[in-house]
């Protein structure tokens, strides 16, 4: 059983007063996420990431299609007891303290009263807010609120986590901490479905990613596959400013920066190139296989005319 199963989920709004034009917030989406997976949902702003999350949380209703989480409907309270949600730029009750908020949420999530207090302390510790339990939330900075948001999502030890832009509002230290936390959660066997537009985080954390743009799924795949060196190219770097004629003949791309030259050429020509440099007595600095980055994949998928990849 997939942890999250999305079948033809669609959301269309009618916009406009007079002649209603349809706005396709989400075109029919098919996705399946297995338990224990960390799944990144990538896309630029307004792509439909938040719409998808809201549909999964039952905050808005789909125009078509269904979704199931842990095999249950999206409005099933039994299911909700096992998931945690962090919305984008969360905001909480101004006049409650962090501790009171988490106690309240714990009550609503059915956390056993006997352990609740201890769990609240633990989770505050875990998100890096051990001292501020008694401070009213209206005094919290954006970054602190983000951490409280994560705290309320993991408080009741859910199986599946949904994060909408978990790194937003955090400084680099904070982002590192959250990334480490997510790694820990992954090791605990939790399923994490999160949306972001920060690709380096996705590349570091995710098992699989999906790219969404203008409400449409553009591509899905395992990170490892997408970033393997697919092109069979190598990058050769040497000191100096001269480019041997034989190298140029190979059709290499050369960039001269200061006192170094960088050339990208196909793997097959690697030995020839190194031979040429040795003959010319050029000082070799490095030879590295070229890998596509997730960014390349992302940008490519954002181009118009790209069709959805096979259901993965």
């Amino acid at each position, binding site marked *: 059983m997939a942890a999250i199963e999305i079948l033809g989920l669609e959301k269309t709004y009618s916009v406009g007063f007079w002649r209603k034009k349809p706005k396709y917030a989400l075109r029919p989406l098919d996705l399946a996420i297995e338990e224990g997976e960390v799944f990144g949902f990538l896309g630029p702003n307004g792509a439909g990431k938040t719409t998808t999350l*809201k549909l999964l949380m039952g905050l808005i209703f789909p125009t078509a299609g269904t979704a199931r989480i842990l095999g249950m409907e999206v409005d099933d309270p*039994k299911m909700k007891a096992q998931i945690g*949600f962090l919305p984008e*730029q969360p905001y*909480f009750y101004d006049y*409650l303290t962090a501790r009171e908020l988490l106690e309240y949420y714990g009550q*609503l999530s*059915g956390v056993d009263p006997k352990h609740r207090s201890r769990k609240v302390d633990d989770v505050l510790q875990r998100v890096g807010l051990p001292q501020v339990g008694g401070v009213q939330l209206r005094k919290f900075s954006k970054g602190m609120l983000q951490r409280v948001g994560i705290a309320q999502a993991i408080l009741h030890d859910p199986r599946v986590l*949904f994060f909408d832009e978990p790194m937003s509002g955090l400084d680099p230290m904070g982002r590192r901490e959250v990334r480490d936390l997510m790694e820990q959660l992954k090791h605990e066997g939790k399923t994490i479905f999160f949306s972001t537009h920060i690709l380096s985080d996705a590349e570091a954390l995710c098992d699989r990613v999906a790219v969404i743009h203008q409400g449409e799924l553009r591509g899905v795949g395992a990170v490892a596959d997408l970033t393997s060196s697919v092109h069979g190219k190598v990058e050769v770097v040497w000191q100096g400013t001269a480019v041997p004629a034989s190298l140029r003949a190979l059709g290499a791309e050369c960039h001269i920066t200061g006192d170094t030259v960088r050339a990208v050429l196909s793997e097959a020509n690697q030995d020839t190139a190194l031979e040429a440099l040795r003959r010319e007595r050029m000082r070799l600095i490095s030879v590295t296989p070229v890998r596509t980055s997730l960014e390349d994949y992302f940008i490519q998928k954002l181009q118009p005319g790209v069709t959805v990849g096979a259901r993965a």
Partner: protein
Amino acid sequence: MRARIAHIASNTFREAVRDRVLYNLIVFALLMSGASILVGQISINIERLVVINLGLTAVSLFGMVIAIFIGIGLVSKEIEKRTLYTVLSRPVRRWEFIVGKFFGLAGTLVVNTFFMAIGVFAALLYVSHSFQKPDAWVLVALYFIILQFLIITALTLFFSSFSSPLLSAVFAFSLFVIGSFAEDLRGFAGITQGVTRWLATGAAYLVPNFSALNVISSVAHSNPVSGQLILYNSAYALVYATVAISGAVLVFEHRNLK
């Protein structure tokens, strides 16, 4: 299920209190003290009248304002500020949320009225120097005022579930005013004809009947309140509030929360 509703209710109460709503009691206390002292210096025999009229009217109006201004934010503010998202992603059903909010605000108003009642009776004691038997009816008048609060809270909650805070306040306040003249509206319907009659009759039955719940002048003149009236008013307030809350639940259940 009941536990969750109770938790939402107590959280709503806590939020209202922390939001300094109870500070209105200070203003009220000042008002009552000032009035009693003033009144105590004019002619005898009508101090009791003035204190009861003024006191109960103030309780009613203060409470209405609180009910409306907190009520309009109950749902719409939560949606606007997105605090609702993290609540609804938990095993809380949408209807439990609405019902919990209602009890929370109703509870706040009851507590507020309780303190105000103490104020009214204190003022009464000050001007009359003793409690008289008819003063018991003041309690009934206060009970009716609480019933009015339940109705207006339910109505504000209903409007808040689909409309903006400003519009909700306008609607709720309008219904309060029209409802205070509900019996006249029915009388008006009785003497008109045709389409006007239908419209007026329909409105008269839909609008909350606050005039029946207002026994302030009667009680100020030491008149008793019939047991039958107490019974019918209680049933009516309960039933009407249920209508408004059901409406709120139905709207909220099917609403896309953007």
